[in-house]
């Protein structure tokens, strides 16, 4: 398969996953903000920060209020990771690879892009936000299901899985970071709203029920971090994502370097002592190092398959 085409389906999957996860993050933050008493201030800017786009935000906004942050995360075209920008990029990538994916996939993305473009205002305002975000998440899931069920599971699909799972592992690690920042801020006093926040983080990944079934203890930060980082059966955890990345890498030619890196990253995630990391206030730093691992895997994929200059 052509490198250019592989690269496009890889980015297609990454962008769709990014749009879905960004929508999920905004959704969970939105819901928890409705539960919090007036006296507790949620930092929407903190949410922007975990996506790594805060420098761009600062270029365009003075006020770090809810409206600006939500607009930036959902709608702004100068934020390359906003839901709108991600879907626009996904659409451009699928346009040029329409021969490879089922034709319904193009229709889903095209319609989702148009829906998003035409309904951004509802997403930014509080009233229509839930419906808007739920619609985006659901349609992204439809695409994922369509590709899983109707596209040949060949090399092209391997690159779809690579993109999707690498992006998902990355986004879930960022979700953990939302909580990690709270650990840092917290002094000796137990925070009465901790439970609410962690619940919302779990919910944002549709992981609340699964957590309940598997962990059985009351919601607490340490267990939620451990679950989102290390649980293998639940498909939105970092460990599961990296496992799938490894699985998608296996059948690809010349996969040695990326494969070695993903195995390292998996060990890194699975061997982490979460209690100790939190006790030492090192969770945020750990997440940072995990994101570096993921970035390294991405670079290796890029160099192995998308930048071909030498004969086989």
């Amino acid at each position, binding site marked *: 398969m*052509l*490198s*250019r085409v592989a690269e496009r389906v890889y980015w297609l999957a990454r962008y769709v996953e990014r749009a879905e996860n960004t929508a999920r993050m905004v959704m969970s933050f939105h819901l928890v903000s409705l539960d919090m008493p007036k006296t507790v201030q949620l930092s929407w800017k903190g949410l922007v920060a975990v996506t790594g786009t805060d420098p761009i935000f600062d270029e365009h906004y003075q006020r770090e209020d809810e409206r600006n942050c939500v607009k930036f995360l959902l709608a702004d075209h100068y934020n390359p990771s906003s839901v709108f920008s991600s879907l626009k990029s996904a659409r451009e990538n699928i346009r040029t690879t*329409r*021969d490879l994916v089922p*034709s319904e996939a193009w229709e889903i993305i095209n319609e989702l892009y148009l829906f998003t473009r035409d309904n951004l205002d509802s997403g930014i305002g509080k009233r229509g936000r839930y419906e808007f975000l739920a619609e985006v998440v659901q349609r992204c899931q439809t695409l994922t299901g369509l590709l899983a069920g109707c596209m040949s599971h060949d090399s092209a699909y391997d690159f779809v899985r690579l993109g999707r799972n690498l992006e998902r592992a990355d986004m879930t690690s960022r979700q953990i970071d939302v909580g990690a920042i709270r650990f840092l801020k917290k002094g000796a006093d137990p925070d009465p709203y901790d439970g609410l926040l962690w619940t919302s983080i779990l919910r944002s990944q549709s992981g609340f029920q699964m957590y309940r079934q598997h962990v059985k203890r009351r919601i607490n930060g340490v267990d939620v971090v451990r679950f989102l980082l290390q649980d293998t059966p639940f498909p939105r955890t970092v460990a599961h994502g990296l496992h799938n990345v490894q699985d998608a890498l296996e059948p690809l*030619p010349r996969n040695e370097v990326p494969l070695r890196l993903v195995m390292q990253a998996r060990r890194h995630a699975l061997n982490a002592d979460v209690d100790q990391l939190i006790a030492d206030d090192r969770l945020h730093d750990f997440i940072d190092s995990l994101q570096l691992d993921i970035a390294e895997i991405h670079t290796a994929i890029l160099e192995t398959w998308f930048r071909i*200059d030498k*004969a086989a």
Partner: protein
Amino acid sequence: MPIDWKTYDAAPFYDELITPSGEPRPAARQLADYLTSLDDNELQIRKQAADHAILEMGISFTVYSEGENIDRAWPFDIVPRVIPRSEWQAVEAGLVQRLTALNLFIDDVYNEQRIFRDKIIPKSVLNQSKNFREQCRGIHPPHGVWAHICGSDLVRDGDGTLYVLEDNLRVPSGVSYMLENRQVTKRVFPEVFESASILPVDEYPTQLFDMLASISPRPQDYPVIAVLTPGIFNSAYFEHSFLAQRMGAQLVEGSDLVVDADDCVYMRTIAGLERVDVIYRRIDDDFMDPEAFNPDSMLGVPGLMRAWRNGKVGMANAPGSGVADDKVVYAYVPAMIRYYLDQEPILPNVPTYLCVNEKDRQYVLEHLEDLVVKPANESGGYGMLVGPHATKKQRAEFAQLIKKDPRNYVAQPTLALSVAPTLCDGGLEPRHLDLRPFVLQGVRTDVTAGGLTRVAMRKGSLVVNSSQGGGSKDTWIVDEEA
């Protein structure tokens, strides 16, 4: 109310299906009878079925405007155009004869240039040709063939004679629509396919693959074939992708290919660089190789010309083929046929006045209101003057243009283009059409059974281009004896 052919009036034009007295022509009898069995409502239902099939099959063409390119559904008329097989056999022979002569001419131009020495064609034609490529001198492509794929435009005049209007030898397009039109018609009119003997057209992708395989530098069963496209923004992208899929070839863009130090062409795949044997390029000479031609081209592949010249890759059509796709050269095709093949041309040319010749120029300038004036090197109907429809001012402008650059202009009499019944808002009405058959030449030569019929959907219009309100029809070669 069903159509009554007695009241259908195509006069003063030649109608492809119905005689002036209102009788269906013999080859069109089954179709005409079938159409009379349908009332307006039933015809509309079939039209809707066709529109639906086109949408569902994703047949589109791209219109680029305002920075956003839009895929539009392919405009299609459900009433096929019918040609009797007995007539088609002669057309087929004429097309083969023509392309054979044209390839001998191109090969001669880039090698001995006998035809100029023997004064059949003045050498000056070459010196002023925009599509002559000095870089191609001395090259001998496989089988002596340069133009492997040719789309010739045929038109029928008022007396029923088919003329060749032009030969497209650069990157002719439309064949995918010919194939898709047939698929749609089979869905809409399955009954007629049962009663009439209609020649199939589906062989084309296989023949194209075989032709391309025949020019591979590595004789083997499975050569690696790539279709080189300028990309998604090109108006013919649908066709590029369609043909690649049908042939099982790779659809590549310039950036996918690289020419290595061994002069071989490779494509960048996830398994590394893979050698490409034959390139079906859908990109003009100028943009093909920034090393050899336009250095600003972002679409091409540096070194492609070098790879081809050294015989490391097959290329269809060969660079430089466009030298014969020129309206001045066109005028000499009958002479070429006599010179190279020692045969009389089977298909006539439209009489053509070359403004570069003083006598012709004088005649053209005196008869501008009766003639169609065309620039020698443009395609797609750009920069034309249709004398009878032009204003006095436009004619005066063209007179100036001709005097300034006579080599660049030719003129032809306005033809009374034939018509065929076409489904319009008010039922079946005559509309003007042309025909583009496709000819493949490699070791052997194949002609499509029919081709792409393009129809001007607007009443009285002669413009058949899809970007300007033109549509298309399925074309049936009907065997009356079977």
